[in-house]
């Protein structure tokens, strides 16, 4: 059996981490954009689109991400559509992220006091103008901490892409511990790397939250 040094393990884990990072960025950015679109439909989409978005959110929040990835990759394959793994992973993660961000942001929009809507309405602003100039800027501000906080979940969520053949951090961990029979070393390192990725994010979220509470008491 091949002998791995600690350095070999670490090197391979760090190498796999780049996939974790890339996948996280893609899903976060893509999910953010899609989520914003869904948000607009959810709060302004009237009787047709709002329920559609609700069902969408329910579906993606109500099933394991693992299964979503599986179905995105193989399910489409069943219909003869050959999606490469990176695309399936990106699509599934983006859809999943968007479902959560839409809900988080909806909460933030609703947290903007009713008086703000009324004041801007009484100044003659249309719905879109109210959104654009009064509500969204305030909601955005409230939204930053929970959004950054959720990015931690995205980073950890990328672990599940191994089901469709991605060798990102946690899959690399599994593979390495199977090759080396040193699960503790390997998983210990994996945990450490995840912590190194996630801790700054959750600290940033907390910091932003605290800053906001001090700065604005409206």
């Amino acid at each position, binding site marked *: 059996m091949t002998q791995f040094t600690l350095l070999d393990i670490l090197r391979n884990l760090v190498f796999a981490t780049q996939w974790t990072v890339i996948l996280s960025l893609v899903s976060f950015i893509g999910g953010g954009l899609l989520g914003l679109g869904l948000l607009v439909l959810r709060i302004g989409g009237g009787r047709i689109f709002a329920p559609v978005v609700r069902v969408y959110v*329910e*579906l993606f*929040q*109500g*099933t*394991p*991400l*693992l*299964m979503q990835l*599986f*179905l995105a990759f*193989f*399910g489409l*394959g*069943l*219909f*003869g559509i050959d999606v490469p793994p990176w695309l399936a992973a990106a699509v599934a993660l983006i859809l999943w992220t968007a479902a959560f961000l839409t809900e988080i942001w909806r909460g933030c929009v609703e947290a903007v006091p009713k008086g703000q809507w009324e004041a801007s309405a009484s100044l003659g602003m249309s719905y879109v103008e109210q959104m654009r100039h009064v509500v969204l800027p305030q909601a955005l501000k409230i939204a930053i901490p929970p959004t950054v906080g959720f990015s*931690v979940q995205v980073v*950890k969520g990328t*672990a599940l892409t191994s089901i469709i053949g991605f060798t990102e951090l*946690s899959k690399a961990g599994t593979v390495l511990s199977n090759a080396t029979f040193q*699960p*503790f070393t390997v*998983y210990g390192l*994996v*945990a450490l790397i*995840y*912590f190194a990725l*996630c*801790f700054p994010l*959750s600290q940033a979220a907390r910091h932003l939250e605290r800053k906001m509470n001090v700065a604005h008491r409206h």
Partner: protein
Amino acid sequence: MTYEFDFAWLAGYWPVFARGVAMTIRLILVGGVLGIALGIFCAWGRALGPRWLRPLVALYVELIRNTPFLIQLFFIFFGLPAAGFRLNEVEAASLAMVINLGAYSAEIIRAGIEATPRGQFEAGASLALSPLQTFRHVVLIPALQKIWPALASQVVIVMLGSAVVSQIAVEDLTFAANFAQSRTFRAFEAYFLSTAIYLALAILLRFLLLRLGDLLFPHKRGAR
């Protein structure tokens, strides 16, 4: 590619799925009740507890929230025996879920506590309630009521996340799907079925939790 879905094999495997569903429900029941209890304790510890307790709770919460559940599970199941503390896989999975939900719900509940107006604490104090009595009788219920929907969502997330306990041989719903597909090679059907069951469980669980909220907090407060 034309694939023919075939669920005939299910005839032989439905007991496996039934047991899997039962296990998943059992895990989330234990994890949910004890996890929220732990969350309440930690939220108290971090927001109002003695000085020495706060950094400990913070450390626990950060460690759990910033590492994957699977890794936590492995450490509990494979690692604790080395420290002379052996749990079987169901106990280990339950403990992992309690610890995981405990950390997340601690943060959520703390937000509820911190959103409690200072006047409530002062009113409690001025009536000669001790800080703990104030927390227990005055602060806790309204704080929980405020964050109950968020808490319900987190419980659902933990339930869905419990899928990975099959990796330590807990025979839950995902195990059932994996087991069936490893015998029959009917992966699509098995995973499709388990996904549908998870969705149903998630919807049901959220519904029940919100109903429970109505029972626990019979008095709906008007718009603030």
